[in-house]
């Protein structure tokens, strides 16, 4: 009988039930879309922030103090320490290897351009006087690193410094090519495709490289030249060595716990610390696989990133919460309306001897059924919506999550029950007679 009553109520006035279910599914679609996007957005935004480049800097621990002004290191070549390139594949073996998204070793040497230039006064090509104090940076452009587990990983400056804009193309790591900075190109009248001659501190020993592109970085590199690391190593007679390593890692914003000194932590605290991808704990594990290195967090990038990420996450949660609230109120209101309009029916049932409990139970069952149907439809609608939003903004759709489905169904049930509870409570005080008389 109970089931028949419920079924009857659905078939007798289908349009009204459809309307209530529609309100419910729309509301739940908002909640689903907002929840899926918010759950997913943290990781997406963190990788977005990698367009700021590296957040970790590795230098040799035994290094002497760099005498660097505007990007040119004035130390003699034989001073200072180097790190072995052979250790680099180990970066992808640390616990957080999936969070290391790019790294690039560099080796710098001060050079001067001796490219012959056309002189209008003598109508001939002349070698310019050694005038510039420029820097030649050896780096990877798009280098394939063989990993110990047999795989490979492609990385280089292209990944760690995504903001560089290049006219022409990047150099090939295996060829005697180079890219020149914007200012260097202007000063030395460099043409893409033609060679440049660079000379270091020792006269007579030079390098001839083909220019493949002119880059603009907005930093000190604009005054210099970037060439394959191997060529600079050969030139400096430091095969397989580098001096600086830029690492770009996905991190979690640091909190007070993350800033504590790992030496003062108890063992369980240390475990928790090293199992969270804080920039400081990644720095710690890098130091362990790169012996003789000094790993520093680039505070400017890491902290700016952390504070903005925290804010944006909070913002999204607030918007999600607002969506939840609005949807809950609207759904609650429409389920309340659907109970209020059934005064006559409630009166009749009570007149026929049904107790307030039975009536409430019947209505609650109906509302729950509606909630699950509406919630289910809303979830599918919301998932499609979240895909659209995710695709549009990040190019990747958030994966549908079971957690969201459970949360949405629970919310739908809770809100409809709560929305109908208030009118139901009032309905229990109804006197059947006046209602049936139509008063």
């Amino acid at each position, binding site marked *: 009988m109970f089931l028949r009553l419920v079924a009857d109520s659905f078939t007798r006035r289908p349009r009204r039930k459809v309307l209530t279910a529609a309100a419910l599914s729309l509301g739940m679609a*908002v909640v689903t879309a907002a929840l899926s996007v918010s759950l997913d957005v943290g990781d997406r935004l963190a990788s977005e922030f990698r367009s*700021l480049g590296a957040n970790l800097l590795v230098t040799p621990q035994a290094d002497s*103090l760099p005498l660097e002004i505007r990007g040119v290191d004035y130390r003699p070549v034989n001073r200072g320490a180097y790190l072995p390139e052979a250790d680099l594949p180990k970066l992808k073996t640390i616990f957080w290897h999936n969070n290391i998204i790019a790294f690039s070793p560099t080796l710098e040497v001060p050079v001067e351009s001796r490219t012959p230039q056309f002189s209008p006064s003598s109508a001939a090509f002349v070698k310019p006087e050694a005038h510039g104090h420029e820097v030649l940076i050896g780096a990877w452009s798009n280098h394939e690193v063989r990993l110990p587990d047999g795989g490979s990983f492609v990385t280089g400056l292209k990944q760690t410094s995504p903001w560089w804009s290049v006219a022409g193309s990047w150099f090939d790591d295996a060829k005697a090519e180079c890219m020149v900075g914007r200012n260097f190109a202007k000063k030395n009248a460099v043409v893409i495709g033609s060679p440049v001659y660079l000379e270091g501190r020792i006269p007579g020993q030079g390098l001839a490289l083909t220019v493949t592109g002119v880059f603009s970085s907005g930093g000190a590199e604009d005054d210099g030249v970037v060439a394959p690391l191997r060529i600079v190593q050969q030139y400096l007679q430091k095969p397989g060595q580098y001096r600086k390593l830029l690492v770009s890692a996905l991190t979690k914003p640091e909190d007070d716990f993350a800033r504590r000194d790992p030496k003062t932590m108890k063992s369980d605290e240390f475990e928790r610390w090293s199992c969270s991808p804080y920039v400081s704990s990644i720095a710690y594990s890098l130091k362990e696989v790169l012996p003789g290195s000094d790993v520093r967090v680039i505070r400017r990038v890491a902290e*700016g990133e952390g504070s903005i990420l925290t804010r944006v996450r909070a913002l999204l949660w607030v918007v999600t919460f607002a969506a939840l609230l609005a949807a809950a109120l609207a759904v609650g209101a429409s389920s309340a309306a659907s109970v209020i309009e059934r005064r006559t029916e409630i009166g009749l049932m009570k007149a026929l001897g049904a107790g307030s409990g039975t009536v409430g139970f019947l209505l609650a069952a109906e509302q729950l059924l509606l909630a699950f149907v509406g919630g289910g439809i809303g979830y599918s609608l919301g998932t499609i919506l979240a895909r659209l939003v995710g695709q549009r903004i990040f190019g990747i759709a958030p994966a549908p999550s079971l957690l969201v489905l459970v949360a949405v169904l629970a919310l739908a049930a809770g809100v409809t029950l709560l929305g109908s509870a208030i009118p139901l409570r009032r309905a229990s005080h109804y006197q059947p007679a006046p209602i049936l008389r139509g008063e």
Partner: protein
Amino acid sequence: MPEPPRDNGQMFWRIVRRLLGANRGRLFVILLALGAGAAITAALLNLQVDAKRRLTTEFRAFGPNVVIGPRDAVDSDGSPHFLDESMLKQLPDRNEGAPLAYAAYLYGVVDIATPPRERDQRPAKTTSVILAGFFHAPLGLSSVVPAALVDAEEKVRPSNARRCEVGQKVATILELRTGDEIGLTSGKRKDACQVYELSAVGGPEDSQVFLELPAAQALFEQPGRISLIQLRLSGPPQQIQEQVARLEQRLPGVEVRPIRQFTEGEAKIYSRISGLLTATVVTVLLLTSLCVMAAMTNVAMERRNDVGLMKAIGGATRRVLHLFLAEAALLGLAGGLIGAAAGIFLSIWLGKQVFGVAAQPRLIVYPVAVALTMIVAILGAYPLRRLASIRPASVFRGEA
């Protein structure tokens, strides 16, 4: 159709009043739905306007994003080029409603003499280090110099001794601690200062020593000279570009260089976040209004009986429709007003939660929210149009 007589107008509003007052419970419910919609609309619109502006201020955490320096860093004989200190006076005072944050640096190489120490029999030695004379404005809070430097200024009480902030790497290699005395030599000039050890910042600053600008100018014999200026321009990416162009015009003969790592990165992040925010807010608003509409439709459907009765006693379809649309509009207005008032508090609270500062209420947002709610409420009553075809008789016979 002839214009209704005057007393009919009175009748019209009386019926509307009765319709609204007929069922208090339902009135409350529908006002709740409409009010919630309006409150969310108002609060989100307010937050949306405010958040984009605040986001650009948050980017201050990345430090300076523009460098002003001489066209060529070095002369043909290798001696460095300088800027004149008077250039600082030509910078604009304000940027985006806040005082412009800038820092001026003078770089050079000094020999640091560390005195012998008896404790661990460390001999006296000299090491070459980069010394940066610096000055920054506004004092106190600053977004252009590393936070460690600002801390040093605040923490250390001014004393008679000259203070120099020593980068963490320099301090480690030279084994210097806060309070040690060191001697600085550049050419024939000598100076001495008391060490303050900075915490690590992960940049070139870690291997530099910092001194007040006038003292550094005296030490390097470069009075009134600086090597470069770093500044922070805030605002949306477009505006930063315009400001850089204006600075270039104002300061001829120097290079105004945006630090592309930050300007481009920020522009990218800004467009992503504001896109995300707009998409979420639009979605929420759209679906909130659909929810409200569904609730209104529910109410409209109940009016079948009333419509039937009115038509039976001779009400013209158009007048009956006007009656219900007026009811819907009134509901929308009331719900919108209640919601907008609640929205003020909601947006203040949301602003505090997200940015720690209450969002400034923007007055334009509230009329928009009220108008939107009214439109949604009237649209929600739209299914009533179908009621025009209702036959009174079939309603009274109880046919669905």
